[in-house]
């Protein structure tokens, strides 16, 4: 199967500093791939290597089945790029800026005219088209930058930290727009330092210290971080029976955490059980607790902060 993006043992050095260390990565057509990691992890370097702005020190890179270093202008028309900051021209109007970028991608006058309008409407900036870029808000500038990246309808869109410093409402809107683009069949490669945004991607790569710690769907990563799924139970009744209940639960999964609450009038216990698959394991859990007072059963999804932390810890222990 031909991937939209494929790297093999990709490494990048700046002098003595090794920024990327032997990355093996694939991104399929039509998916949103999120590259997540803390500042300085090497996300922008990887993205710049994939766009052909930087050349790799070692390894191989293929984007749209070609090495980025041998991209022709025709190949580049298939790419879109949204840099971290607003890099367009503040002295130009919203429409002039978009006209300019559409021209860079070789759109003729009529097509440009149509696409500029469609794109500005898509990012909800059509009403502000005559305003100078300097006179619109930071959020609008980021949307204008996104419009500049998609005005030529690229197959593959590279987006570098699109939601950095944006408020949660705007961040959500951006992700809605990314999903709409994916629904149009485009592939998105998105870097972000917001771990929570991993949830919004089809597949996620965790990058730390230039190493790809883990790659997979958000669920896969969660399972990998916790060795399965969590089932959270609150048990009431006689605390003396708790031991019996735990023994029964051990037969279905692994008890990860037990916390007793003795401060309330009625003593309760919180039990977190790790199972392979929550959906299939849940009936068995309830069956094994026959006779015990089950106050509540929940299948919580641990935050990606926690997932990331566990995976990082796991990796460092392995190393």
């Amino acid at each position, binding site marked *: 199967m031909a991937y939209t993006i494929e790297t093999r043992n990709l490494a990048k050095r700046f002098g003595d500093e090794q920024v990327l260390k032997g990355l093996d990565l694939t991104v399929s057509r039509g998916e949103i791939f999120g590259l997540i990691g803390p500042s300085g992890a090497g996300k922008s370097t990887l993205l*710049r290597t994939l*766009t*052909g*702005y*930087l*050349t790799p020190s070692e390894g191989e890179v293929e984007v749209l089945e070609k090495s980025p*270093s041998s991209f022709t*202008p*025709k190949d*580049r*028309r298939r*790419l879109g*790029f949204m*840099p*971290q*900051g607003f*890099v*367009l*021209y503040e002295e130009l109007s919203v429409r002039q800026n978009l006209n300019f*970028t559409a021209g*860079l*991608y*070789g759109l003729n006058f009529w097509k440009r005219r149509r696409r500029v309008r469609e794109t500005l409407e898509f990012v909800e900036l059509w009403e502000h088209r005559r305003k100078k870029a300097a006179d619109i808000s930071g959020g609008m500038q980021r949307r204008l930058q996104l419009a*500049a990246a998609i005005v030529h309808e690229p197959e593959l869109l*590279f987006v570098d930290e699109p939601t950095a410093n944006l408020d949660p409402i705007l961040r959500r809107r951006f992700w809605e727009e990314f999903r709409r683009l994916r629904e149009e069949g485009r592939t998105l490669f998105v870097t972000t330092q917001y771990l929570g945004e991993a949830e919004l991607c089809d597949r996620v790569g965790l990058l730390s210290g230039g190493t790809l710690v883990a790659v997979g769907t958000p669920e896969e990563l969660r399972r990998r971080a916790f060795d399965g799924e969590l089932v959270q139970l609150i048990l009431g009744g006689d605390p003396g029976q708790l031991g019996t209940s735990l023994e029964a639960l051990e037969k279905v999964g692994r008890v990860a955490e037990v916390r007793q609450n003795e401060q309330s009038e009625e003593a309760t216990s919180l039990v977190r059980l790790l199972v392979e698959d929550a959906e299939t394991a849940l009936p068995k859990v309830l069956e094994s607790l026959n006779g015990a007072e089950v106050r509540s059963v929940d299948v919580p999804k641990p935050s990606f902060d926690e997932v990331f932390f566990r995976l990082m810890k796991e990796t460092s222990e392995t190393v």
Partner: protein
Amino acid sequence: MKIGAVAAKEFWGIVRQPQLLLLLLVGPVLIMVIFGLSLDVQSILQPRAIVVVEPESEGAELFEQYRYKFTDRTDFVGTTDDLDSAQQQLQRGEVDAVITMPSDPLESVARGEQAVMEVIYSTINPVFGTAVPRRSYGLLLSLNQSIVQEGITRNIGDVRSAQEQIDELNRQFENVDAAAEALASEEAQEETAELDESLAELEESLETLEDAPGETGDEASTTLEQVRETRELLEEVRAAQEAGAEEIKDQTGASELERTLADLQSSLAELPADASPQVLANPFRLEVENLAIPPGIVGFYTPGVLALLIQHIAVSLASLSVIRERLGGAYEFFEVSPLGAGELLAGKFLTYFGLVLGSNLAVAAVLTVFLGIPITGGVLTMALAMALVTGASLGIGFLVSALARSQLQAVQVSMLLLIASVLFAGFLFPLGDMKGPATGISYFLPAAYGIRSLQDIMLRGEGLSYFDLAGLLVIAAGCLALTRYLLGRKKT
């Protein structure tokens, strides 16, 4: 405290940019050092001159006699007998002046006319262009002074010497006259006659004794011989005495000499009375001709200001353009797009080219209309020269932009280029009066070609020289190609 914090922040911000510091400190110092090494003040004061002389003529002799005056007062290039080739050298700018020596200066003076020394030069520079006529007049004055001084010294000596000799001869002639008069007197004639008689008696007596035997006869014979010789000489004296004093002087040649001396005295007395005092005091006069028509001070500096304006605006705009986008992140956006480095450069070039050329053509039009600055070589030729200067300056600006690390660096380089152009491109000081490193630097300054071209076209009515055309094209093409290469390089 707050001001101190701001000041400290600004200070460290600058100190942590070593390249900027280098430009701020070393750049101006370097320019002034080069300026000091390159400005040839002597060259400004002493124009390069070639002297035209007719071989083996009086003028050539006189030139050789006073050659040191030419070499002292000019940057003497040499002599030639071909006026046309000397003028061509002048037109090519290889010499600043052509001095033509008259072929027969002394004959002119003898005719009572001043000999004419012709000087031609060609300059439109109203500031430094006066060196040729100024030095020529200095040379003329010195030449006249020396010739007159030497003439007077020699003549006075000759006259004095001749006069003394004549006086001596006259004294001697007075003695000769007296002697001749004395010899011709009656008294002298009587005494001579008496002496002759006494000698005749002695001769008879000695003839008698001559036959005596022994030593007496021999002695008498010898004495007799002496007496006879004396009588023969005395006979000549008596003959002269009988002829008179005049005959005595004629025979000795004294009369003829006396007449000659009288003629000489008369000639010496007559000579100064015929010569004109003007010619005697100034045997040479000067005819100076400037082949170019110098404009006023504003007119002269207008082409230079235009060339400097074009260069500075173009370099400033271009040097800031790429660096601004590189630092702002737009350049990375371009790198991912299909836009090639050459296309980016061409797009920028077209806009700036039109903007800079258009605005400066408008400035030239305003200057022409309101200040009456001439464009004698034609508007189209001027526009072509301005277009070439604009292209070359944009090339340099883009190259600066590709190399600079910050906008401040780019601005600083633009300023240094402007200062260098004012000093080394022929704006303040003629390029021909520069030597050493400044000459080399001027080859890389579009303003140097621009100032020369625009002065030629606007003020001299000439066309654009092939040298300037080629120079500007090479700078533009070289810088743009290098910038294209630098911008197109893959980041490693």
